[in-house]
């Protein structure tokens, strides 16, 4: 089993602060001043990114995925 972190960003809350990009630059980027998730990630730094968001705009959904045989 692999843990995959699916990222949801509430665009109505995001202020474009950029803390998520600093914490996990591979998973987030800023587009027109609003954070977008690049993709689901296996990198636990996305949890730190969600915690660092001053607006609480990021939800992480932790999924257990069977690895391909």
């Amino acid at each position: 089993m692999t843990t995959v972190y699916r990222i949801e960003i509430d665009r109505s809350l995001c202020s474009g602060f950029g803390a998520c990009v600093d914490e996990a630059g591979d998973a987030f980027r800023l587009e027109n001043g609003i954070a977008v998730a690049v993709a689901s990630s296996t990198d636990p730094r996305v949890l730190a990114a969600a915690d660092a968001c001053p607006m609480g705009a990021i939800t992480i959904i932790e999924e257990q995925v069977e690895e391909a045989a």
Partner: protein
Amino acid sequence: MRADPTFWLIARASGLTAYVLLTASVLAGLVLKSRPFRGLRPAAVADTHRFLALLGLGAIALHGATLLLDGTVHLTPVALIAPGASPYRRLPVGLGVLAAELMVLVYVSFALRRAIGTRNWRRLHWATYAIFAAATAHGLAAGTDTPQPWAFAIYLGAIGSVAAAAAWRSFAPPLTQPRRTAR
């Protein structure tokens, strides 16, 4: 003839006003972080947090300027900039100067967060607790109104509310706890 007390009165009032505004800004920051009132929009809370800090800095500027203009405690411009340079109540006044300078630094850091990195910005923001503690000690020990029950009540209320909000922040579950699903 008795000296005009206007500047002295404004200096005392603006000092207490700055302290109340700093307290309110700290509380707004803690409300933003731990979200105890789900109905409040985070963007509005963030704006309020910054605006209260800016108003607080304005009150601090008025506090310093009127202390310079008033002759009661004979402060020099150097004593308003260098912590510990005031012969009058050296340590408490120095703590006030230090708190004000740190508060300017924290406020300005918001605009510089891209340059310094948001991680460093967050580390610097922890200084707010030290600023609040220094401002409290400054007010209690240097403020001539401290023995008055109403002034003491302001300090007690501020300490109690910030301690309660900080405890809430520490013990409340994080906002973005991961949800778990399996597939």
